């Protein structure tokens, strides 16, 4: 096997959204040389995304060709197979609420779970910075529920005609709602065009109105400010036992598997998301780090977190017009506020929907309809509307909510694959039924307020926006990294973004991952 070495001041492992935040800040604020290593391929260029979207719309095809690596089939609920430049955020929905202040103080307020080593106020400037980098469009919600020190960088996406009606409906139930903050340009922003409601934010925006990490990588690469090495999988971090520092990372170039690629750097940043970050640290077990790099606490891979949800469809006597901008929603943080009682918190989102209102083949008597019969029937049934409502709710992670190395399954190059198991802490297990019942009661209240009816409810059996595995904390025995993302065990090794979360809140978490990564970058820059 031949060897090739690449040197830089900072080596960032992974090229997803948290990596993009770190690299961008370091490039802007330092003169450090930066190499970014990505296991996957480059993403489809912007010019080809319109065509890819058409194939998705017409045939359901994956609009991101080669966005995963064969052989990385995992036992457990992996959020996505996406592994490409830009990561999972190449096909995210661009939904960017902040966490609430109470999210960082569960132990103090509710007597359960753990407080974070930072407060909302500590993170506020980094939330702002992330919002400006991504061009977040939003409106200030009621300050008690939605505190922020500066305005959003872009005006909110306008409420559609449908959402205007649904906002009125929610207010009748005493629920304050506002436009969901989104990393979608409501006006031209830093070279990005304004959103024109193509409405396929997930999985692909054909015009670049929605932020995706390639928008950060492309200018950094064009300016030669970073070096982005694709198709290269980092398999080990190597420890210098005399200093306790990471000396280099060992990678495999998928195009040249017989060549070992070494990355030598002063600082290493693991930015592989909630799954692959812990996986790499565990894979890197070696003399002096018998249970894995950064794992003296034994907590690498532990406390995987996220949130569950309850969803419902509510029929309403409202004339709605589905399709105006279906992926935009209303948001309320009203139920995220501390009440001092049980640890039951959830958000609330409201969308227009056409569920149950589509054209049908058979009438109520079961007879096949053809020609104008179908259209007439569809018109009659769509004279009134449907809203989709969903609440994410908090789940406290158990220590055994974990990523481990799978003894039975290996990558194509012989390393154990990760194995995932999400497990709720006993306090959350005890509260699950009551939490879901409370949310269903909110949905019923909403339905009654609008003279409507809940037509069906559902819960997903997975935790969305997964995070954790390298949780932050001040106590090196009870956490993997400090509040800056620096590992307790290795002075020059950082883990950034999702893995460092202590808990998963009850809101979409990507903006928080980005804010945490930017805060880490401040420390890395020193």
């Amino acid at each position: 096997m031949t060897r090739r070495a690449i040197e830089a001041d900072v080596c960032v492992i992974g090229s997803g959204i948290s990596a993009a935040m770190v690299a961008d800040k370091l490039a802007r604020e330092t003169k450090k040389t930066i190499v970014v290593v990505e296991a996957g391929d480059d993403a489809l260029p912007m010019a080809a995304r319109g065509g890819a979207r058409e194939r998705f719309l017409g045939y359901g095809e994956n609009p991101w060709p080669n966005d995963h690596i064969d052989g990385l089939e995992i036992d457990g609920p992996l959020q996505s197979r996406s592994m490409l430049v830009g990561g999972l955020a190449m096909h995210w929905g661009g939904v960017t609420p902040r966490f609430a202040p109470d999210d960082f103080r569960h132990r103090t307020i509710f007597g359960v779970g753990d407080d974070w080593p930072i407060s909302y106020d500590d993170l506020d400037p980094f939330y702002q910075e992330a919002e400006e980098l991504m061009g977040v469009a939003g409106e200030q919600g009621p300050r008690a529920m939605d505190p922020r020190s500066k305005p959003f960088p872009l005006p909110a996406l306008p409420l559609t005609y449908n959402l205007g009606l649904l906002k009125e409906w929610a207010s009748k139930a005493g629920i304050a709602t506002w436009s969901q903050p989104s990393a979608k340009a409501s006006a031209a922003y830093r070279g990005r065009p304004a959103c024109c409601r193509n409405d396929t934010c997930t999985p692909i925006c054909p015009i670049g109105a929605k932020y995706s990490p390639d928008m950060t990588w492309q200018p950094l690469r064009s300016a030669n400010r970073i070096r982005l090495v694709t198709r290269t999988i980092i398999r080990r971090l190597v420890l210098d036992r005399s200093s306790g520092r990471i000396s280099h990372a060992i990678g495999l170039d998928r195009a040249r598997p017989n060549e070992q690629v070494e990355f030598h750097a002063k600082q290493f940043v693991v930015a592989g998301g909630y799954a692959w970050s812990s996986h790499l640290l565990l894979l890197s077990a070696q003399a002096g780090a018998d249970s894995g790099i950064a794992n003296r606490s034994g907590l690498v891979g532990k406390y995987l977190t996220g949130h569950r949800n309850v969803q419902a469809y509510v029929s309403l006597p409202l004339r709605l017009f589905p399709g105006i901008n279906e992926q935009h929603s209303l948001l309320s943080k009203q139920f995220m506020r501390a009440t001092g009682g049980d640890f039951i918190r959830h958000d609330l989102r409201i969308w227009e929907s056409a569920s149950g209102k589509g054209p049908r083949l058979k009438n109520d008597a079961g007879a096949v309809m053809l020609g104008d019969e179908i259209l007439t029937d569809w018109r009659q049934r769509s004279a009134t509307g449907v809203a989709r409502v969903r609440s994410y709710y908090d789940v406290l992670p158990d220590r055994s909510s974990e990523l481990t190395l799978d003894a039975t399954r290996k990558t194509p190059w012989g390393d154990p694959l990760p194995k995932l198991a999400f497990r709720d802490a006993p306090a959350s297990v005890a509260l699950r039924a009551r939490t879901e019942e409370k949310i269903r009661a909110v949905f019923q209240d909403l339905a009654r307020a609008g003279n409507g009816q809940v037509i069906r409810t559902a819960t997903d059996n997975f935790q969305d926006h997964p995070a954790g595995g390298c949780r932050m904390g001040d106590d090196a025995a009870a956490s993997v990294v400090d509040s800056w993302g620096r590992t307790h065990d290795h002075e020059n090794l950082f883990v950034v973004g999702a893995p460092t979360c202590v808990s998963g809140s009850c809101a979409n978490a990507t903006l928080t991952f980005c804010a945490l990564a930017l805060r880490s970058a401040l420390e890395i820059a020193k």
Partner: protein
Amino acid sequence: MGWLAGTIPAAAIVRGAHSASIAYLTSAPATLDALAVAILPAELGTGPIGQVVAGFRHWIDGYRENAELNHGYGNSRLRFTGPTPATRWAQQLDDLDAAAQAAHGASFAALTVAQRRDLVRPALVAERGIPSSPDGATHVGLALLGFFYASPLATDLCYEVSIGRNTCRPLGESSKHPVPRSKRSAGRVLTVRTDIEAGS
């Protein structure tokens, strides 16, 4: 599809059948046109019905077997498209024609709309509903319905306004009540999926 030779090796027959079926369906067979007139809403008008059929043929022509399907959020399973449905659909058009000959002594296209519907209905009785896109349809009639009713054009027709679902439209217009549908704003004839829900 009686033009398939019986002595060709099976694999070649399958490959040949696929391409021949696509050629057959995309070359304007009268039976498909007649089927469209029978099952699509007459309110749409003759010209737009023709556009829908042309769009459907274009869709068939563009179908790719074994293409990777979108792997959605919260789902890491990879899925792929199946064999082209064109072979089955072409056979079903032939079956309709044969049934027309048997019942009325004339081609399917030569029948009245009511007579055509009487022949189509039995084929759809066992179906559960209109699919959100043509690819899952077991019958060509159902596929055509799925193709049309998933389109922005169908939504606009139903609601009698110009929504333009899944098309590029000014963001600032979204707060307004959609304007009444006119022929000028009839929307494009392109199938889109109706099973997309907002992700994260």
